[in-house]
């Protein structure tokens, strides 16, 4: 298949053996997650082991699109293995990292990397095209992720601004630095919330893979390559790119194009969500903006992160940039805002107030520095984002602090200062004091502190599934919560969030939604093959949220993302693109674009629906692995607060009221425990799994071409009943 280099690097750290797997043996999975799951199933003999067992297998996979010019599809790298973060079982899970690692891996001639075993001493992997060495990492152990990368760059390039690397045909030269994945002290100390970091701010955060690497004594993987990716039809790929740009992107050089729904106000409904038609707005949440330029992963037009003039906060985005923002702002916002507001209101009325609200924050850089420190120490920012407010609430409650039941010598009155951030993050990464508890995640820490039941019941600890932090609340963004609890992690897939964000943002500003509820539901469901044309899939009303229609929504979402996003590796930032402010009919490019780009690269003829069906196969394989690990229907549960406490805050989502479509407010909603059980039955039946156990059935696995998986389940006594 074009797009592949033909081989996957296989490294056994226990035996120091370096070999390769033929990509063609896994080609039917196309790439990324599908290949990773298949390889894991083949090579991990015992799936019931824990994350730190020597038998754990970690896969790092690219796709045919990686390293090409496919927009939003050229840079992601999928990491899989048994994770350390979730509870009660460390599920076989996934994480994903952008930047340039995947592309460089392809340029070095590899479609992926498989790590087995455990080194007896700290090591790093040095890949220079076909030349692969396992090197001792004694000097690197203890360094942070940035310093580790600097040391490796220096060693590989000899300190020069370019590198010379052997190739099959001779010597290749590149001005690029090696692309490095590295762990910091958090990973070395097996913190279950440790991430793997690449460059300044790309992180494989979820799953605790930093700790898994630490348990294998693997400090870093460096790769530098001077080759290229073979593309079946380069002309078709460039034409597809031009087609997307012409029809689905905003022309920022044309002021006339920036009106109506494409204006700054109109674009509020699209900012930072999946749409090619959005203005290029980095997804960063600093308390103030510094002079910066957009920064993007390889081949991506979005530029969702920044490089700043100060050098602070480079490449971090999304929740990484929000871990300290609130506290920095609370501590450091001053009276300037008040003064500016008065002046602006008198001069410009409401518009002036709004402008000031957006920009009049007193300059501070503590939030930037706290984020950079988390990246350097290799800590999963999303846990910090949810966990630091939890610790503060416990402190205010009088449960945590010096001499309290949860002993902690941090001064929470100083929260927002740089000193506090340094002390807390170092304590976590080095497992010192209260940091030793938090290093295993806030869910496990709450258990150790004897607070888990109470705080999961009240929602003070917002961890709705698998001991993992809340992201989009299941009480209104139903498919997110249901998909996460049916899977292995916070899905972190924003494809349907526009259905919440677009009407809710419009309501906040008192403007008309870009689409009516009925229009929006139509625009989405017409693409949701094989269930296209069922609008009730996106009826988020309480009457419908436990229905078989919503089972189809979740199934579609699991399948779409398992293939198109996690195997073909289109980025969550741009795909799926259902709704688009720049296109003539408001429809996005999803459904057409994904196969157009993939087929141009591979030379294949996979349809959009074909990819979703392949996603179903991958999703079934994953469920089989979870079943082997110990998954049963009874384990699939939300934390009690999802069932017992009403949703606070406004959340508008499409739904039917007396048979008519509207944007309805989910405020006050709970998820019925009893009805959710019925929904689970609907879902299992739709998937062809045993509703009693949630286990796969032979009939379903056989129909998907997975008879060997069925045999493995049978041998383990975990075959669902047909």
């Amino acid at each position, binding site marked *: 298949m074009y797009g592949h280099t033909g081989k996957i690097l296989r490294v056994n750290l226990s035996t120091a053996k370096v070999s390769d797997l033929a990509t063609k043996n896994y080609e039917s999975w196309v790439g990324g997650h599908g290949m990773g799951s298949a390889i894991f199933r083949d090579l991990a003999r015992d799936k019931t082991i824990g994350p730190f067992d020597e038998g754990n297998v970690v896969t790092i996979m690219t796709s045919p699109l990686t390293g090409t010019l496919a927009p939003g599809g050229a840079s992601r790298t999928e990491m899989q293995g048994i994770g350390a973060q979730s509870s009660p079982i460390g599920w076989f899970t996934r994480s994903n990292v952008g930047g340039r690692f995947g592309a460089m891996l392809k340029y070095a001639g590899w479609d992926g990397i498989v790590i087995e075993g455990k080194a007896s001493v700290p090591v790093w992997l040095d890949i220079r095209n076909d030349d692969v060495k396992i090197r001792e990492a004694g000097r690197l152990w203890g360094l942070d992720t940035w310093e580790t990368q600097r040391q490796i760059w220096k060693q590989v390039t000899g300190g020069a601004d370019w590198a010379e690397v052997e190739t099959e045909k001779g010597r290749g030269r590149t001005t690029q630095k090696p692309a490095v994945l590295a762990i910091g002290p958090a990973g070395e100390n097996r913190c279950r919330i440790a991430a793997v970091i690449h460059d300044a701010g790309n992180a494989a955060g979820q799953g605790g893979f930093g700790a898994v690497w630490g348990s294998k004594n693997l400090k870093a993987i460096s790769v530098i390559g001077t080759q290229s990716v073979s593309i079946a039809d380069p002309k078709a790929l460039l034409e597809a790119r031009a087609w997307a740009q012409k029809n689905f992107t905003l022309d920022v050089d044309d002021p006339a194009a920036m009106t109506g729904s494409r204006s700054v106000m109109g674009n509020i409904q699209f900012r930072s969500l999946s749409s090619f038609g959005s203005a290029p707005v980095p997804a960063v949440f600093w308390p103030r903006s510094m002079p910066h330029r957009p920064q993007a992963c390889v081949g991506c037009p979005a530029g969702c992160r920044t490089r700043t003039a100060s050098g602070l906060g480079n490449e971090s985005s999304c929740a990484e940039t*929000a871990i300290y923002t609130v506290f920095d702002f609370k501590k450091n916002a001053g009276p300037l805002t008040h003064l500016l507001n008065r002046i602006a209101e008198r001069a410009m009325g409401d518009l002036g107030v709004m402008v000031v609200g957006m920009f009049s924050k007193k300059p501070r850089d503590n939030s930037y520095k706290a984020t950079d420190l988390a990246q350097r120490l290799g800590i999963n920012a999303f846990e910090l984002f949810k966990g630091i407010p939890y610790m503060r609430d416990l402190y205010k409650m009088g449960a945590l602090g010096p001499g309290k039941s949860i002993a902690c010598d941090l001064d929470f009155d100083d929260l927002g200062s740089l000193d506090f951030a340094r002390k807390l993050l170092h304590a976590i990464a080095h497992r010192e004091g209260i940091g030793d508890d938090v290093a295993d995640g806030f869910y496990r820490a709450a258990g150790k502190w004897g607070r888990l039941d109470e705080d999961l019941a009240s929602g003070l600890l917002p961890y709705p599934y698998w001991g993992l932090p809340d992201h989009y609340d299941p009480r209104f963004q139903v498919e997110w919560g249901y998909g996460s609890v049916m899977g292995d992690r916070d899905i972190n897939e924003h494809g349907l969030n526009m259905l919440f964000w677009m009407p809710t943002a419009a309501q906040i500003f*008192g403007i008309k939604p870009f689409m009516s509820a009925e229009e929006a539901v139509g625009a989405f469901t017409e693409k949701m093959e094989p269930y296209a044309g069922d609008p009730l899939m996106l009826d988020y009303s309480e009457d419908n949220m436990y229905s078989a229609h919503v089972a189809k929504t979740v199934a579609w979402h699991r399948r779409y993302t398992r293939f198109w996003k996690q195997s073909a590796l289109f980025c969550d930032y741009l795909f799926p693109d259902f709704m688009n402010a720049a296109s003539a009919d408001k429809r996005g490019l999803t459904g057409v674009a994904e196969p157009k780009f993939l087929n141009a690269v591979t030379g294949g003829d996979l349809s959009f629906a074909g990819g979703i069906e392949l996603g179903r196969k991958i999703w079934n394989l994953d469920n089989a692995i979870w079943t082997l690990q110990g998954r049963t229907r009874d384990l699939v549960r939300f934390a009690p607060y999802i069932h017992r406490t009403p949703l606070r805050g406004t959340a508008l989502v499409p739904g039917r009221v007396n048979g008519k479509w509207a944007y309805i407010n989910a405020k006050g909603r709970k998820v019925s425990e009893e009805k959710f059980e019925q929904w689970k039955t609907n879902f299992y039946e739709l998937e062809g799994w045993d509703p009693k156990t949630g286990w796969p059935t032979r009939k379903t696995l056989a129909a998907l071409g997975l008879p060997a998986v069925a045999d493995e389940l049978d041998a383990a006594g975990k075959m669902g009943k047909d």
Partner: protein
Amino acid sequence: MRRLPKPSPELARQVLAPLSFKRRLVGHRLHPRLGAIPVSLYSLDEIVAFLSDVYAQLDLDDLQAWARDSIADHELAAAISAVAASDSSPFNKNQRLRMLLETRLHQCRKISL
């Protein structure tokens, strides 16, 4: 916007006092990539800072109840009620409330000096 009369020193002390865990206000920050993020607010200062966020959500009934019951500032509660009842977008209400609360904050700080 309604003018707030000068608070008494006792009221100023109450307004500036930090809130206990049980009396805290919980708002939500909305973000397209992060959902609705709960934020605990433990002082008037924090509420003002919170309302500076473009996508801050605060239940205005809770806010009125807090002004009335937690800090016994009935004039502030009435002013909040007037903003809540106005025909305006949630964003504009938030901005007006922020200015209102910030005014009260400065009044109280001036008196407590």
